[in-house]
């Protein structure tokens, strides 16, 4: 809540428009509403939809709710016998926990002012009887999540339930809109506007790169492509954060992500502060950091671990202890990123590179919720390139730069889900629904033809082979509307709604070592790990999880059984989730820094030296150049490129380059990619081929690789299969996995990989494949970024032939062996296993 604060200009008039209980309440507290809170109130009262951009601690939540609270406080009470009114205000939050938290924060002032306003949450945890009651007697303010909204508007009584809706508040809008979740939510909002055209929206957001995108998102777009925007209020940032890069006494390693070298210095920092939040980028880093800290925790400081794979009860315990200020430090991944109140944190330590300037700013915002005091943060780079990245991010934070990702066009799989949901609520007219859908910003450019293909997909799968007409789920009826053909499809929809598709996860249960068969069923659940990782373990392997070193005992039914191990050096689980590519903005900053030696003075001495030696022995590229180094090593020849475009784009580039090198008879054997560089190795001397013009660098890196080569590779790629599974599940083609039911379904359901193979060879133009390719190109493959890079470096490729490895190449060379080329690798492993048998039989 707000503290008194001189605002410099007269707010008295606006203040006086507040209902009396509010004026009294502010008076009793000795507070005054802030300028932006009153401005937002005034403009929403005037009928505007608004975007409020403000840093943490600026009283954003109260600002967002003030229009609703004052409106509700003044509205006449329902008389006994009158019909119950529908929901007045809908609040959407990205996190269940946030909705619950906001309810608590809102109830206090409402109770203190004695306002007759009912506030309720509706999340996946809300019991059935309460949901039913909410439908009959709706609360005035309903706090919920995007998934619950999708379910609410797919219900037959949706129009009635929302007939009195005045305001929709979107909290943390910047994080809601960047994903498919945001697409579904945008479609839901368009639906709500059909129910209530005069509806006002309020978006609450942290600072973003493109506020106009959010302003469009909040309001209805014009039917002829006219762009409409909400109003906006931007609150200037609070005090500048104090950020430093850890200047370690130890040697900063060449590669790796553990930052183990800095442990004792991190521990000292924890000791010197009251409460420290330690952020890492992946769950496995969290496990490792936690383990390392406890190894040296001689004072037995209360240090806890928090990440999304841990069991919920354990996470809640940590959150409560944190709120009660009972912890000295928490090691956390992004689960803590969003605006939950975390007690009095006075230091944020960021291990590893932050990957994006905005991400860093938001994470540091966790520390010190009072915006007038500076937040304090220490960046701990895990390797030398990360030192550069941290310095770039630090410069950006001081400059106030933002690099939140641009919004993507609405995806078609989400649209399919929404069309089905709409049909579940009642018959719809295709033209009207198309108009509604295109009024939402992400789908503003959706053509009627694509929309009709999606309807066809929802009805019968939309296949060239029209054999499913008789089983259609929705059908065009005589009155021109599409109707559901059977109510059980609505039931099916409800079980599968939403866009959050978890990778298949297994419970990890603690058991006794070597417990066999039936005995091994018990044991507490520690959390969940991705099936893919567990599949790569064999009996006796050790790994780090939930802060313990565990020994893998086996998988039975839907659980992985593991026992406590004493190993010092476990294999660490690497989760697929939680790896963000380096942002385009930071990448550019890093390239700039490399090309400006005078800026190296800001870097730790050993890193500056490293760059100086690189400059002497090889080249440091200019900002827009691409440096290619070639050198022999062992019996192989290497080519290392430094595009700084992030691991995903580099992996795609690596795949395409090896294909081209193969065609040029340069005999590549493999490649490895990091966030910064790409190394390809093979049997031919690439450097000599370049200098003798047997191989042209500019042809090798020509943009045309994004044409046929990409298509050919894409279709074979396992990445595409993974993307297809997500798309097919969201689109309602295959069932979502429901915990505890996976195995029983195995005989009946069809694996998405098999569906993909069959569809690709028989109906390559199918709309779901189109959606999958578009998704993969933007997501896992980062094709756009690669394309931008290739056009940027045209004519600016610098080749340096070397006799030996350069300083800049050391980090990536150390990564070799940790990854291998996919594709034929599986066949090779099978052949190896078969060879072993043959060898044995010849003894």
């Amino acid at each position, binding site marked *: 809540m707000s503290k008194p604060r001189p605002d410099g200009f007269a707010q008295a008039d606006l203040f006086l428009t507040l209902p009396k209980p509010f004026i009294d309440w502010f008076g009793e507290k000795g507070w005054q509403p802030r300028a932006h809170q009153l401005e937002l109130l005034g403009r929403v009262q005037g009928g505007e939809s608004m975007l409020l951009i403000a840093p943490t601690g600026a009283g954003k939540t109260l600002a967002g709710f003030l229009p609703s609270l004052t409106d509700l406080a003044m509205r006449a009470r329902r008389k006994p016998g009158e019909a119950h009114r529908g929901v007045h205000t809908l609040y959407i939050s990205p996190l269940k926990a946030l909705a619950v938290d906001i309810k608590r924060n809102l109830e206090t002032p409402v109770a203190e002012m004695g306002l007759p306003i009912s506030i309720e949450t509706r999340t996946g945890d809300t019991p059935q009887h309460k949901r039913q009651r909410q439908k009959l007697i709706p609360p005035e303010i309903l706090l919920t999540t995007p998934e619950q909204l999708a379910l609410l508007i797919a219900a037959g009584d949706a129009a009635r339930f929302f007939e009195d809706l005045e305001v929709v508040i979107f909290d943390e809008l910047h994080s809601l809109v960047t994903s498919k979740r945001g697409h579904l939510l945008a479609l839901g909002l368009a639906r709500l506007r059909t129910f209530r055209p005069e509806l006002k929206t309020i978006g609450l957001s942290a600072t973003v790169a493109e506020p106009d995108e959010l302003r469009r998102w909040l309001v209805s777009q014009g039917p002829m492509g006219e762009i409409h925007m909400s109003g906006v209020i931007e609150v200037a940032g609070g005090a500048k954060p104090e950020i430093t890069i850890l200047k370690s006494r130890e040697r900063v390693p060449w590669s790796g992500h553990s930052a183990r070298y800095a442990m004792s210095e991190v521990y000292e920092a924890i000791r010197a502060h009251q409460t420290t939040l330690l952020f890492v980028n992946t769950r496995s880093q969290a496990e490792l950091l936690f383990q390392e800290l406890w190894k040296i925790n001689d004072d037995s400081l209360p240090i806890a671990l928090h990440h999304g794979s841990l069991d919920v009860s354990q996470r809640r315990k940590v959150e409560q202890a944190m709120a009660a200020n009972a912890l000295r430090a928490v090691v956390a991944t992004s689960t803590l990123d969003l605006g939950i109140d975390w007690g009095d944190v006075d230091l944020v330590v960021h291990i590893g590179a932050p990957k994006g300037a905005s991400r860093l700013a938001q994470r540091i915002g966790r520390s010190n919720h009072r915006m007038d005091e500076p937040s304090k943060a220490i960046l701990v780079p895990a390797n030398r390139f990360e030192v550069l990245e941290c310095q770039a991010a630090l410069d950006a934070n001081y400059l106030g730069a933002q690099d939140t990702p641009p919004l993507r066009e609405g995806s078609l799989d989400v649209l399919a889900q929404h069309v089905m949901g709409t049909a579940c609520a009642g018959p719809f007219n295709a033209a009207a629904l198309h108009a509604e859908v295109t009024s939402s910003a992400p789908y503003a450019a959706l053509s009627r033809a694509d929309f009709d293909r999606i309807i066809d997909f929802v009805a019968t*799968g939309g296949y060239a082979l029209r054999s*499913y007409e008789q*089983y259609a789920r929705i059908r065009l009826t005589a009155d021109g509307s599409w109707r559901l053909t059977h109510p059980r*499809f609505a039931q099916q929809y409800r079980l599968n709604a939403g866009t959050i598709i978890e990778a298949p996860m297994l419970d990890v249960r603690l058991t006794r070592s070597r417990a066999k068969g039936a005995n091994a069923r018990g044991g507490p659940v520690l959390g969940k790990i991705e099936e893919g990782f567990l*599949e790569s373990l064999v009996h006796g392997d050790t790994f780090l999880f939930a802060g313990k070193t565990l020994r893998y005992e086996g998988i039975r039914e839907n659980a992985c059984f593991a026992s406590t191990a004493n190993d010092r050096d476990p294999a660490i689980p690497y989760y697929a989730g939680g790896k963000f590519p380096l942002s385009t903005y930071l990448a550019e900053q890093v390239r700039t820094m490399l090309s400006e030696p005078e800026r190296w003075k800001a870097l730790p001495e050993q890193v500056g030296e490293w760059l100086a030696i690189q400059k002497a022995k090889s080249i440091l590229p200019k900002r827009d150049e691409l440096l290619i180094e070639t050198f022999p090593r062992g019996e192989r020849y290497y080519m290392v490129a430094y595009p700084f475009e992030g691991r995903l784009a580099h992996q795609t580039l690596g795949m395409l380059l090896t294909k081209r090198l193969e065609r040029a008879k340069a005999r590549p054997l493999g490649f490895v990619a990091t966030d910064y560089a790409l190394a390809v190795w093979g049997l031919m001397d690439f450097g000599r081929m370049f200098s003798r013009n047997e191989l042209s660098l500019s042809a090798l890196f020509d943009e045309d690789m994004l044409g046929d080569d990409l298509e050919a590779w894409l279709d074979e790629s396992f990445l595409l299969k993974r993307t297809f599974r997500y798309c097919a599940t969201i689109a309602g083609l295959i069932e979502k996995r429901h915990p505890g039911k996976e195995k029983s379904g195995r005989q009946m359901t069809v694996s998405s990989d098999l569906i993909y193979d069959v*569809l690709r060879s028989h*109906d390559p133009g199918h709309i779901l494949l189109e959606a999958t390719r578009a998704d993969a190109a933007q997501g896992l493959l980062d094709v756009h970024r690669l394309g931008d890079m290739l056009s940027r470096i045209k004519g600016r490729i610098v080749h340096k032939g070397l006799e030996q490895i350069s300083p800049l190449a050391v980090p990536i060379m150390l990564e070799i062996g940790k990854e291998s080329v996919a594709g034929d690798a599986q066949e090779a492993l099978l052949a190896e296993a*078969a060879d072993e048998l043959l060898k044995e039989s010849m003894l």
Partner: protein
Amino acid sequence: MNQAAASALDAERNHECILEFAGVQLVADPAGCLYWPQERLLVFSDLHLEKGSSQAVRGRMIPPYDTGATLKMVRDCINRWQPSSVISLGDSFHDGGGEGRLPDEFRQLLTDCMTGRDWVWISGNHDPMPPAALGGVAADVLALGPLTFRHEPLPQSGCGEISGHLHPQARIVRRGKSVRRRCFATDGSRLIMPAFGAYTGGLNIRDKAFSGLFDLSRLHAHVMGRERIYTIDSKQLV
């Protein structure tokens, strides 16, 4: 070098996998069918035709191309081996209504495959009744020389049983990578065939559904690779 290893080497050279089984020689085709040269007999198991449409009936519009894909592979295998007889080892259709839902185009394809040779439908749990209008002969079990063909393996069956039903898959883990493929599983006296259908999943042969069926010391998985069969000792399977 022992004889088994020698013939394995021979087979490898020809990219063929010859199994010595119950006193006869059988060829495991990397496509997933089994050929008995001496009898000119080709065996497919678990085609699960019309599995796609069985889902569509319940509102899951998965692509309707599985039957076509499966039957084209059947046709290719028949063209390759030119058998005089074919056994479809049960679960030929995914459910009782499958034959009725068969689109005309695929009915014709199947009929073409059957023309000019003996065709035996072994009954399976998904299709206890043989197809009504497709021809061929139906049986629950078929004995031919030392071999017995039935859909579901019997725990107490004697030497020479060839069955399907379980959709065996083998999994290996090497260098931190897991590979999982369909396979022929045999210990020399019993053989369980991989599922052939385009939409058929699989079950790890280490699963308890397989327990008691094999002599583990002699169990081998003949794993379906892209172009060849890889024979892998059960000790390496996880």
